[in-house]
């Protein structure tokens, strides 16, 4: 009787250990299953340039600031107030180099996406409300006034603008995401350079082949990433994308993308696997100890 009690108590202790293993493993696994965007190691960056990063007038960079292949000598203004950087500055170091490499990948990823619609010749301020998708311009794109992007209730909705050459916004232009979306799901793949007019309020990640210029009072809620040229700012760039759970690529092109992060093993599969391994190991040890 006593022996039974002891073994039941031992079994109960061991069962608790099994469950504890599973629960902790599941908690950790669920964190790692968060989706990441196509930007790779550029995610912490608000600004990335290749030849120069310049603060013309007072402007704030919220997030990391990087430059590669040029170094610190090509950063002008930052981080001396009123040109502020709240993140880390990476000047031609390994982090910046990797980020620039990832930027090439990111640019190519966006370039490879099929167009949902071709808006060549139209001003983005006149196209009406856009739903998630890939919108293409054969050459330049212009935004005058307001562009509204409707996420349709999907917090990880993705909007990609593939622009053949330049992106130019007029003074006071704006981009807004409605119906539960995030600025972080908006991407601007610019074939040459992007120029933001004064007081433009742009949302999304600008991935430009050459350079990015933000004129006085402009703001970017996202990232300004230039592959081969300079980033010149007279306005703010705020990387507000830290918690974004989507891939940045429209869900129609990435099955299981967006909020559906479907890992190799789900939380419960991890629990089950850990418990089974522990159980088999336990039984094997018991058998061999006899």
């Amino acid at each position, binding site marked *: 009787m006593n022996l039974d009690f002891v073994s039941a108590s031992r079994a109960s*202790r*061991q069962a608790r*250990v*099994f469950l*504890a*293993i599973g629960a*902790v*493993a599941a908690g*950790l*696994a669920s*964190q*790692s*299953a*968060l*989706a*990441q965007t*196509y930007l*790779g*190691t550029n995610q912490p960056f608000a600004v990335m340039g290749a030849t120069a990063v310049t603060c013309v007038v007072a402007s704030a960079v919220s997030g990391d600031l990087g430059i590669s292949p040029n170094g610190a000598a090509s950063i002008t203004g930052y981080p001396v107030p009123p040109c502020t950087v709240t993140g880390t500055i990476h000047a031609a170091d390994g982090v910046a180099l*990797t980020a620039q490499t*990832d930027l090439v*990948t*990111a640019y*190519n*990823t966006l370039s*490879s*996406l*099929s167009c949902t619609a071709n808006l060549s010749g139209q001003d983005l301020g006149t196209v009406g409300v856009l739903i998630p998708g890939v919108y293409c311009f054969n050459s330049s794109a212009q935004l005058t006034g307001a562009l509204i992007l409707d996420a349709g209730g999907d917090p990880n909705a993705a909007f990609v603008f593939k622009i053949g050459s330049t992106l130019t916004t007029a003074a006071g232009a704006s981009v807004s995401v409605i119906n539960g979306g995030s600025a972080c799901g908006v991407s601007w793949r610019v074939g040459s350079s992007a120029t933001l007019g004064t007081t433009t309020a742009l949302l999304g990640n600008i991935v430009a082949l050459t350079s990015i210029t933000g004129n006085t009072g402009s703001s970017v809620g996202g990232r300004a990433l230039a592959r081969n040229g300079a980033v010149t700012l007279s306005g703010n760039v705020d990387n507000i994308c830290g918690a974004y759970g989507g*891939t940045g*690529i429209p869900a129609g*092109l*990435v*099955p*299981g*993308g967006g909020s559906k*992060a*479907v*890992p*190799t*093993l*789900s939380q419960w*599969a*991890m629990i*089950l*696997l*850990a418990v*089974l*391994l*522990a159980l*088999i*190991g*336990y039984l*094997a*040890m*018991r058998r*061999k*100890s006899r």
Partner: protein
Amino acid sequence: MTRFLLLFAALLVGLLAAELTPPLQRAVVEPWTALLARASVALVTLFDSHAAASGKVILSTANGFAISIEAGCNGVEAAIVLISAMLAFPAPWKHRAIGILAGLLAVQLLNVVRVISLFYLGQWSTRAFEWAHLYVWQGLIMLDVLIVWLVWIRTLPTAAPFAAGVAPRTAGAS
């Protein structure tokens, strides 16, 4: 035996926590994920010229279809569960090393097959893709790990001091 369970739990938590740290993510997990995508696409392009890899995204240049291999989709977590169990189980270090290598190989090879199959399933049917990704492949990966674990345990020398529940003190203890 309790020592095995506790050590397993500690290793599992420790390794999973370490895997989540930014330095390891940058140094190991992200490059590994990109390598997995490249390896998958290298195999696919042997018989399909319309496949291309861009980072962790595998694309079909024929129809624009793409799959993205996310942080939890690279088989690393499954391998960590197996490695933790092997390290916690009382066994000679030589056997542990062989088991871990065999386990990593088994999990990662199957994961490449999984990625390639999902790439084509998704082009054929979104429903089939979801079903395979959520149910079929999870079961197969688990089965793969369990088989490696069972085979490894069966191949362990019987003379190890299991009765005491203590791992051998030296590599040649068996």
